[in-house]
């Protein structure tokens, strides 16, 4: 599974750093470093709905407040068992 977080100007201002740091923390805490690849990208052309995050091929919109529930429902559960 690959999570790509936009770190362009607009998403940066909307909190992409907090999201990256929280995801790094959650991935490490749950020992998912081998299953989940976390990457960054410059502008994805979707600034209005930032912070833009790609989960494999799916474009999502996250904020620092929703990152924990995103991890739980989409990342943690998919990598269990």
């Amino acid at each position, binding site marked *: 599974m690959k999570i790509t977080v936009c*770190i*362009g*100007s*607009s998403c*940066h*201002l909307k909190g*992409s*750093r907090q999201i*990256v*740091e929280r995801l*790094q923390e959650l991935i490490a805490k749950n020992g998912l470093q081998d299953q989940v690849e*976390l*990457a*960054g*990208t*410059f*502008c994805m*052309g*979707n*600034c*209005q709905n930032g912070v833009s995050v790609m989960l494999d091929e799916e474009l999502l919109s996250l904020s620092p407040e929703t990152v924990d529930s995103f991890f739980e429902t989409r990342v943690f559960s998919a990598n269990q068992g």
Partner: protein
Amino acid sequence: MNNLCADIGYRSLFKHGEELCGDRVEIVEQGDSSTVIVLADGLGSGVKANILSTLTSRIISTMVAAGISIEDCVSTIAATLPVCSVRGVAYSTFTILRLIENRTAEIIQYDNPRVILLRDGKHVEFPVSEMKLGGKVIYRSLISLQENDIFILMSDGCIHAGVGMALNFGWERADIISFMETFSEVGFTAKTLGTILLDECNRLYGGKPGDDTTACVVRIRKREPMNLLFGPPSDRNDCNKMMSLFFSKEGKHIVCGGTTSTIASNYLGKPLIPKMEFPDPEIPPIAEIEGIDLVTEGVITMSKVLTYAKDYLADNESYTQWSYKKDGASLIARMLFEEATDINFFVGRAINPAHQNPNLPINFNIKMRLVEELSDCLKKMGKRIKVNYF
């Protein structure tokens, strides 16, 4: 003409309690590669000293730049300066450093601490010849310049730093030499070297300088071109033209902006790999593209570079930040302020629709103003700037 140029930086500490400085540095450029620098220290302090040193430095720099002999300069000053009512003399000490075609330095010294020359990191005494003009003893030297020569011009506030406080006899010239030798080969700019010297003086004075204290540093260095690409062209058909002009330039290449770096990455056919590190939480991460020296985000990073540039021209307090940090803005600051002497900006005028959102503190006008303000600051640092718009 050779490939050398001079990086000149100076700063002053005001005598504690004074609102004006009695020291003055005046720089007059003569064409491309000759410069006259005068550091004058007026008698006393405050307004009177300020007027004396301003008159002295202005008169000398203008006259020397016009090719008038030092004898005439000194007699003009003696005849012009107002006489101090308390002491009955008209008096301002001065140091003249004249760079001729960036090959030769002529140094003329009257009563300021002797100029320090550091050559390849080591102190070198240079010969002086003595002449007497109207009862004044003046020392004159001719030195042929080498790359990495560093000249340090000072007012006596430097060597008196800490008298009777931290030190018995002040900070002697020999001590200043060994202190500055340690910093001479790091690659700091003239301004930063001057700041380091004055910060130490200020520390020795306990934060309350007993005299106006001025340091002017001149570094002889090779010209170093640098190219910075910022923003996609307004017409997307111009992408290839802009890229080929940019990448054909000699010197290092910096690319700023997300879309811009994507265009550069496509042009070079090399992947764009963002780094997921945040050395400065305010500044978005940098990225890597093979063949480009530095890739950063655009507007936020450049705004920070501009903040650093403005501070550099003022108190230069933030060099302690950008001189070592690893975020995009600090890296650009080091490349532009320290490394580069000739900077080519390639600025794209495309409007990013995503940035025209009133809730975001970035828009097209801010971007264009950033470039203008930054190139003004860099010119004031003595860089040659060219801006190309696309």
